[in-house]
């Protein structure tokens, strides 16, 4: 059958099972939009209000489903507006396929109207990208893009399509499979290393499971939970790994890293065996690398060989898919004679005693007085009221850390935030993507007065598609995270961290057609949250006026070791 490039585009999306697409039109993608217009019953296109919002929405969709998020934007400014989101997805290994329009082939390189070399611009922040130069390559390129985005270590893939290609016709057939000779991610871990890992595990006295985003991305929460319970070992998660293991479980010692718990960081510091699974030893986790885990051997499971021995020297590297490797580790463990949960628990009994001592520090305690709302308290209550079962998106800053510390995630894919790039503006559009993926679910957006203003225009998208997101604005009147650093390390010189001229968020929400609330008294927090939850079909913007100079504790200052935490 002969189809136009634009029709082929639609057919390919359908063949890939794409039901939702986030985008914004423009000259170079008019044919594509025309074809989508005629396929409205098959593919749901969500019109955002800024291309950055389209990419974050697609990320939210992907992070809450583990399916690739799909974006369509026009050439030039449409494409450059998408770059922040693409870089964000690259840092957090989010599977995305981003389509950009390009000027017609004959005009490429001529500084044509709305021409940018988006393939060149995004090269360092995509898993891969393509410029389609022949209509006969279009279908196979799209197939490759989806394959690359979701296989191996996931990531964003960009496909740049010149306008003339969307107009001309060719014979269409969608390839069933695709192979790329130079790309073959290792799924199965090396058996010998798996045996060595179990040997080390059975000899450890102070082991720590340190697991990350890879467990969530690799759909391996169940296997991880099984192995951890079988072993009876303590487990900590990175910011990106939260939900990979139930946070309310006794064996979970909290998040680790810069704003991790006292017990998690101290235990890492004292550990003799760190079992890293789908985590990449980020500097927010290790602090000063020279002081990191001075007594430990390392086992490291990761699908990306370049994550292994990048920041720390690893004793047992296992390259493979986390789900496969966890199953293999369990099998190997169960094959060992005389080894049971009871023996491995007994093996580390003194270690648990020690950890439970550290726990008594109760490093996340805070006092909620009658006068000023503590941000921690709002998150606590939100967790309580939603039964820990909401999808929680966040922006970037103090509120993000409080969300991570006080919302206890028991399930994977529930915690949606920007970790690697730390992109303010991520929260609201990401929440849109999540709500579209899970129309019936409770979706919260925990944000700050700074971050929310970076993609505030998406409130209009929420109106158009009736997305009942619960926006929790932890309004401290500051760029709080910046202010905290200035308080600690720049003698309280608050350079540009005061958010002057804040809008009236209640009126703002109302003007977009939503419900706005301002909550100023601690006594009103619970009632407001309950009221918002009861408004099931409405977006509710809750502006919580919180303590202005609150700080996130514990904190490991930059350059310090894990045992050098600031506690209050």
């Amino acid at each position, binding site marked *: 059958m002969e189809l136009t490039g634009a029709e082929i585009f639609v057919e390919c999306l359908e063949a890939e099972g794409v039901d939702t697409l986030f985008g914004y039109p423009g000259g170079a993608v008019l044919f594509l939009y025309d074809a989508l217009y005629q396929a409205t019953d098959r593919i749901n296109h969500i019109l955002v209000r800024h291309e950055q919002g389209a990419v974050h929405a697609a990320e939210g969709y992907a992070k809450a489903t583990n399916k690739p998020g799909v974006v369509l934007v026009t050439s030039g400014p449409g494409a450059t507006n998408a770059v922040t989101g693409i870089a964000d997805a690259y840092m957090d290994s989010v599977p995305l396929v981003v389509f950009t329009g390009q000027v017609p082939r004959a005009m490429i390189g001529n500084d044509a109207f709305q021409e940018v070399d988006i393939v060149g611009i995004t*090269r*360092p922040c995509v*898993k*891969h990208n393509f410029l389609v130069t022949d209509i006969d390559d279009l279908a196979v390129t799209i197939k490759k893009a989806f394959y690359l985005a979701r296989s191996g270590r996931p990531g964003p893939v960009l496909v740049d399509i010149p306008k003339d290609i969307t107009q001309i016709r060719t014979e269409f057939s969608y390839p069933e499979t695709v192979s*790329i000779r*130079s790309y073959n991610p290792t799924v199965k871990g090396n058996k010998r290393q798996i045996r060595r890992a179990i040997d080390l595990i059975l000899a450890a006295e102070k082991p720590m499971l340190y697991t990350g985003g890879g467990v969530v991305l690799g759909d391996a929460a169940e296997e991880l939970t099984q192995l951890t319970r079988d072993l009876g070992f303590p487990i900590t998660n990175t910011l990106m790994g939260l939900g990979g293991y139930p946070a309310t479980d006794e064996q979970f010692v909290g998040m680790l890293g810069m704003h991790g718990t006292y017990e998690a960081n101290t235990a890492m510091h004292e550990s003799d065996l760190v079992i890293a699974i789908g985590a990449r030893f980020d500097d927010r986790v290790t602090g000063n*690398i020279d002081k990191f885990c001075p007594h430990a051997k390392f086992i490291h499971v990761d699908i990306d*060989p*370049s994550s292994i021995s990048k920041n720390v*020297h690893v004793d047992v590297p296992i390259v493979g898919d986390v789900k496969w490797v966890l199953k293999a580790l369990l099998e190997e463990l169960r094959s060992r004679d005389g080894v049971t949960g009871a023996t491995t628990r007994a093996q580390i009994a003194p270690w648990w005693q020690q950890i439970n001592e550290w726990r008594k520090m109760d490093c996340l305690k805070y006092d909620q007085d009658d006068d000023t709302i503590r941000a921690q308290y709002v998150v606590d209550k939100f967790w309580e009221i939603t039964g820990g079962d909401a999808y929680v998106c966040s922006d970037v800053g103090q509120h993000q850390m409080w969300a991570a510390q006080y919302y206890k995630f028991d399930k994977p894919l529930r915690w949606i935030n920007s970790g690697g790039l730390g992109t303010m503006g991520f929260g609201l559009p990401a929440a849109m993507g999540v709500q579209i993926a899970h129309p019936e679910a409770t979706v919260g957006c925990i944000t700050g007065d700074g971050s929310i203003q970076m993609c505030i225009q998406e409130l209009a998208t929420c109106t158009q598609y009736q997305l009942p997101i619960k926006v929790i604005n932890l309004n401290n009147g500051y760029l709080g995270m910046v202010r905290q650093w200035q308080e600690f390390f720049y003698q309280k010189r608050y350079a540009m961290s005061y958010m002057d001229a804040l809008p009236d968020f209640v009126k703002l929400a109302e003007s977009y057609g939503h419900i706005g609330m301002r909550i100023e008294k601690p006594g009103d927090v619970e009632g407001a949250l309950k009221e918002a939850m009861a408004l099931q079909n409405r977006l509710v913007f809750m502006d919580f006026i919180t303590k202005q100079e609150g700080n996130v504790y514990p904190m490991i200052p930059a350059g310090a070791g894990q045992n050098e935490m600031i506690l209050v």
Partner: protein
Amino acid sequence: MGNLSSETAKRHVISILIENESGALSRVSGLFSARGYNIESLTVAPTEDGSLSRLTLVTRGNDEIIEQIIKQLHKLIEVVKLMDLAEYAHIEREMMLVKVDVQKKGACESVKRLADIFRARIIDVSDKTYTLEATGHREKVSALLNALSELPVIEVVRSGSMGIARGSSSLRL
């Protein structure tokens, strides 16, 4: 101990087979600049298989850095295969074209003598200049250039190193 030790940097010649596609080369060079790796030289040309180019890259780094470089190169979708020649007995060659001013008395003779010693060839002659072509290990080529530097050297063109493993080891699909 978790941290990576830093030992002295070693020179590595890395041969790479890469898809012969536009943009592939800039992915390699972009990787080096983005991650702060050093490139001493880089040569590239098509191979007998039209779908592949062969790239020879010379870099320096300690073992950990070289390990990362190789992993990061592998991670580029268009890199099909590579070989770190430092792990093999190998031969390394570089070509140099050099133009010298021979107007000074006796200059012609000394250029001819040096060409002889270094097995270089004189490939162009004018009333004012001689142009030489020399091939050999980078150090030999440098030594020739050094010897020529008594004369006014007008222009030097070096190809950068190429390498191949000795014996039956080879980089092919």
